[in-house]
């Protein structure tokens, strides 16, 4: 009798698997050093298709140097995992009482995908930085939460 019940549980353990994934924030999104026009400007990082640097939107007079899209690496546990990424609508970066807004993460970053194998996948993060007219000089920083939902096959 004992043998029969043990066998029953062993069968269950063999049948079921739990898929996970490992997610690591590797590098921040960095809009670089911006010599800002007094009239304000829009700086964009379009990381839809991979790592990307910041650039000034057409017509802007500001000058930007350095900077790069953010990077999160996802290490899947199985092929066929559906990865849904929920970016924040916007975040604020601040320097004391001064602030700037970064928006449009979703349209400038890696989109939802399905894992093909268990190799690490780069999630590149871009966005749009709003520089107001007469923006104060300084180093601005902040953070945002990215929710990653994984549906197992």
């Amino acid at each position, binding site marked *: 009798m004992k043998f029969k019940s043990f066998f029953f549980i062993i069968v269950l353990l063999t049948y079921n698997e*739990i898929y996970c994934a490992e997610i690591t924030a590797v590098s921040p*999104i960095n809009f670089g050093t911006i010599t*800002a026009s007094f009239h304000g400007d829009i700086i964009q990082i379009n990381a839809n298709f991979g790592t990307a640097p910041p650039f000034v939107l057409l017509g802007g007079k500001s000058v930007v140097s350095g900077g790069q899209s953010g990077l999160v690496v996802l290490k899947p546990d199985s092929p066929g995992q559906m990865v849904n990424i929920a970016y924040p609508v916007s975040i604020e970066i601040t320097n004391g009482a001064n602030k700037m807004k970064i928006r449009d993460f979703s349209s400038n970053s890696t989109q939802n995908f399905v894992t093909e194998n268990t190799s690490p996948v780069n999630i590149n993060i871009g*966005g749009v930085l709003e520089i107001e007219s007469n923006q104060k000089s300084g180093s601005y920083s902040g953070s945002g939460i990215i*929710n990653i*939902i994984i549906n197992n096959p």
Partner: protein
Amino acid sequence: MNLKKIFFQNFLCFLFILLPLFIPLQAFSASVTLDATATIEAAALTATQQNSLNFGTIIISDQESTIRINASAGAATPSVESGTASVSGGGSGLIYVTTNIDSNVTIVYPASATIANAANQLTINNISANSTPSPLNAVTGTNNEIHVGGILTVPASQTAATYTGTMSITVNY
């Protein structure tokens, strides 16, 4: 205990204790915090006088004369606009503007300026209309030029002497 009872006990154990542990997790979520940074530097604008505005040497006559330097399209020399005076030498003023970003720069000229020798004075008018138009399209990596002119009125009885003065010209982003 019969076989049926033992099986039933195992089934209950599976249903209420073990089953939840081994059901495959269909979806799970994780959050990751991403840092964001940017550094803002102030744009810099400088203006430096290169040449002073010089109406040259004017020989007056018995009537009022006006001497004009029209530098609205670039460097210029004085000419007699009205009256019978004569003028030699002189030239428009020149200011170099440098910037570290491309930008339209607003130039604010004074309505008039006075040059004097002791108690004697002369007035320069129409400075804005005779100088580089505002706004100036200033670009990086070069000396952007502001040429300054105006109209000097010289009365008939003006005391012969060297007249000097200053004016303030402001450039803004």
